[in-house]
């Protein structure tokens, strides 16, 4: 079984006071800590579980600059056999089409039985990387998978639908599956584990080695361009409750009672 997993290194924006940069299309992110995209942690864990139960080889891929290697080290620490990082300055802030072209190029002529991606990334959240890569590879794909079993040349999955519903799907391998959070319990990666992984090699690929010309990159970038981002306008009707936690809780309770809440 040849397995591939794609991971992304993203900023953690919890509690951050985000500001839109002067260009109106990017977020100031200098002070933000970065980490592996949450959905990708589950995809990586699932990939390792499949490898552990069926045997085989797991290759981890990442499109990102040198700082993003931290996420690849996590892959190596939990059991990936190989790590591949693709980077070109032209890929900075690139749209999903350009990134997918790089992902497709990184796979090259190698044939994988199972390719796993997170269902989406917490930074841009397009949810396009997996499906677009499957299209480029000409393999079937299933998205938002929260249960998975590989058996007899097929992968049996449950896709998460609304309202607690699931959809069971059977797909022939090779296939691409995008993983929803909660499918498993990603293991802890110790600092010692990450340090040991620093001794393992990471294969570097640039735009040339993944076969993307400047023209191709420009074409892909034209398919989807970000016009602008803005912080939500401050609306009306919100009341900020001030005071100690006890006071805030008491005010909150009073308001709920006043509004006829069931308490």
């Amino acid at each position, binding site marked *: 079984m040849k397995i591939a997993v794609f991971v992304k290194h993203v900023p953690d924006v919890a509690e951050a006071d985000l500001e839109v940069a002067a260009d109106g299309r990017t977020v100031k992110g200098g002070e933000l800590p970065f*980490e592996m995209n949450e959905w990708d942690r589950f995809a990586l864990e699932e990939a390792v579980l499949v490898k552990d139960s069926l045997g085989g080889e797991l290759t981890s891929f990442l499109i990102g600059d040198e700082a993003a290697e931290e996420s690849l080290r996590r892959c190596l620490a939990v059991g990936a056999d190989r790590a591949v990082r693709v980077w070109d300055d032209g890929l900075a802030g690139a749209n999903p089409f350009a990134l997918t072209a790089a992902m497709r190029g990184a796979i090259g002529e190698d044939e994988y039985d199972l390719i796993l991606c997170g269902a989406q990334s917490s930074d841009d959240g397009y949810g396009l990387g997996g499906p677009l890569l499957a299209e480029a590879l000409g393999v079937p794909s299933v998205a938002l998978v929260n249960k998975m079993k590989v058996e007899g040349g097929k992968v049996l999955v449950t896709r998460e639908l609304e309202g607690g519903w699931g959809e069971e799907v059977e797909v022939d391998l090779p296939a691409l599956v995008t993983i929803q959070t909660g499918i498993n319990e990603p293991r802890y990666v110790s600092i010692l584990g990450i340090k040991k992984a620093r001794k393992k090699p990471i294969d570097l690929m640039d735009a040339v080695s993944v076969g993307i010309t400047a023209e191709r990159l420009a074409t892909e970038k034209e398919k989807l361009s970000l016009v602008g981002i803005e912080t939500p306008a401050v609306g009306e009707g919100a009341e900020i409750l001030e005071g100690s936690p006890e006071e805030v809780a008491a005010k909150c309770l009073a308001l709920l009672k006043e509004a006829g809440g069931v308490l």
Partner: protein
Amino acid sequence: MPKISDIEGVTLAERFELSACLQCGRCTGGCPMSIRSPLNSRKFIYESLIREDGEALLEREEVWDCTSCRTCSSRCPRELDPAMVMRAVRTVKIEGGRIPKTLMDAMESSLKHGNPWGRSRMKRTAWTEGLSVNSIEEDKESRRLWFVGCTPAYDPRAMEMAKALARIFEVAEVDYTTLGSEEVCCGSEMLRAGEEGLFEELSEVNKENFAELEFDEVVATSPHCMNTFIADYGLKIPVTHYTQLLAALAVDGALPFGEEGEALKVAFHDPCYLGKQNSIYEAPREVLKAVPGVELVEFSRSRERSLCCEGGGGRMWIEGMGEGERNAQIRVRDAIDMGVDIIATACPFCLLTLEDAVKTTGSEGKLKILDIAEIVVNALDGNERSEG
């Protein structure tokens, strides 16, 4: 899955010289967790001895119940260290990656944000708003560092400790500075939870900060930070707990208490990391005795026999297997029986576990849990009737 014998290539028995164990059971007898958890330190040692590889210990989930209070180690007649056996087993489990999710989050947050509470580095100094707090970020230099600690900096309840201390230091004109948002978790709880690599990462940052800024004294809010600076960092400068500084200020008459203090019956709960592990029993009591109106009374289990609150050893982030009444609840009930107004403590973890116990035993209104710094600040001239 990593093996226990992978650590330094030796068995637990060899590493901790466990063949000297008499199997007398004083460790388990003194353990504050053994009454309500399957945790049995004598058995851990026995199994380390009879099974050469000791791998069966990895199946024992109760290893997460240890609070690292070290009562076991302090009572061993052969001077063995059962608490270190627990830590070593935890370390192997951590390398295998299968640990409680809540602990995993705390560890990842410590690496990413420099605190175990999942909060942003940028918010570390949010508690100082509206207060006068010296910080290197505002060019307030001093050779004495006040290490605030993550829990007093981020937890809304424990923050009152930090606020009270800042106010006392201002009134008593104490020369100090803080690291502001440059402060990073001391790593004590991560080490005791078994994440040795993470402790090294965090301690390196702190050690560099301490050396670069040429501090010649560190005063810690939390006994856990203080202890790790002394026991694990190997700092060459004096490290003290804030109660020692307040005791000295009280002796010098530098704490301007109001003349008429409110009459309060106060029992002091000895934090394990202050008392049992560092033999600091007098300083907190001297501070309390100096507060006008305070009548200090003693729990039957006090000083080296103090009942652990269960907040140490990473237990703030581990639910554990223990069943029945928590130690902190026992503590609260004992205090109510003694008719005290306040259980005073001097540790952010004790403060939080005891306060939780007041709520879970339905004892709100019957007594208060206050940190010594809060009791002092309430009694300062002009503050007497504001709180308390």
